[in-house]
């Protein structure tokens, strides 16, 4: 009789677990990064905790803080989080555009990058764009502050012409302060005559 009762209880417990009616309250799963790797999340506090550091490792935390770990499949994780995963915004992307000397003209070799920027901005919902202009070290600091801002504004204007809401476009100039390639003052360096654009 005792063994039969155990069997019934165990079956009942198994049924409850499968139907999701246990006391499990929080379920955490570590997902692989875009590159396929994964890092880590700690679950719990000082009294009871675990570290998830393998893709698809999971922790189920019950209402008393008890933790159970196991590994699930990618399919199970995708099924459990279908809608949330589908709503995940795309990764921010950055673009670098190079400019002609003492000019706000984008170089011919940067035209394809400019087109790629326009395409990326057009396909994102509620897009935010941060435009930061830079110069090389030829000329005065004040002139370079002005030129770097004019370069950033030139890119900003092109984006507004393509219908991007100006409220979500920020343009700043950093002058010659942040060279990509460090040089002595007054040295021309085409790689420092640039605008960096972050699309989010």
């Amino acid at each position, binding site marked *: 009789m005792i063994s039969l009762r155990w069997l019934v209880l165990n079956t009942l417990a198994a049924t409850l677990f499968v139907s*999701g009616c246990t006391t*499990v*309250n*929080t*379920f*955490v*799963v*570590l*997902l*692989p*990064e*875009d590159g396929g790797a*994964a*890092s*880590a*999340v*700690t*679950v*719990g*506090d000082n009294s009871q905790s675990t570290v*998830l550091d393998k893709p698809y490792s999971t922790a189920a*935390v*019950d*209402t*008393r*803080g008890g*933790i159970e770990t196991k590994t699930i499949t990618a399919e199970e*994780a995708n099924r*459990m*989080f*279908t*809608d*949330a*995963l*589908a*709503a*995940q*915004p795309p*990764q*921010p992307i950055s673009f670098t555009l190079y400019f002609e000397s003492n000019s706000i003209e984008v170089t011919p070799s940067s035209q394809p990058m400019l087109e790629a920027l326009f395409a990326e901005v057009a396909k*994102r*919902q*509620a897009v*935010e764009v941060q435009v930061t202009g830079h110069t090389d070290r030829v000329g005065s600091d004040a002139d370079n502050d002005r030129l770097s801002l004019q370069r950033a504004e030139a890119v900003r204007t092109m984006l507004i012409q393509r219908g991007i*809401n100006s409220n*979500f476009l920020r343009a700043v100039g950093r002058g010659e302060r942040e060279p990509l390639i460090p040089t002595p003052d007054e040295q021309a360096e085409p790689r420092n005559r640039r605008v960096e654009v972050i699309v*989010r």
Partner: protein
Amino acid sequence: MKFVSQIVPAAIFAALAFSAVSSAAEIGQIKNTTGQVFLLRNNQQQPAKPGDTVEQADIIITGANGSFGMTLIDGTRLSAGPNSRIELKQFRFNPTTQEGESLTELHRGTLTIVSGQIAKRSPGAMKVQTPTTILGVRGTRFAVKVEE
């Protein structure tokens, strides 16, 4: 005395200006919504739509067919499925030093996260709370589900 009387109002004004700025600062933006999604701020609930900015202490709620995605200014990406309630309890980020800390609570529902600069710069400085546990984020992609 004259010196003091000029300094004190200036200091008070600066403190007021600072608190006004910090309490209403944008910490992120709603990027996409599906179905019913609401933004709860100062006990006022309104429909959330792509482009809406979010602030510390905001709560985002999804209905039975709702989902949304948002980005925070440190590059963190959050997205939630149906019947979810997410509270942006604390958020502090310095764009220059890339340092900060955050606490997000998932009261119910499903939440997926790709962590940004806060967790990258200081592993564990980004935390996610649920009714029964707390997560310390070292990075970067994970998902959380809370059943009531």
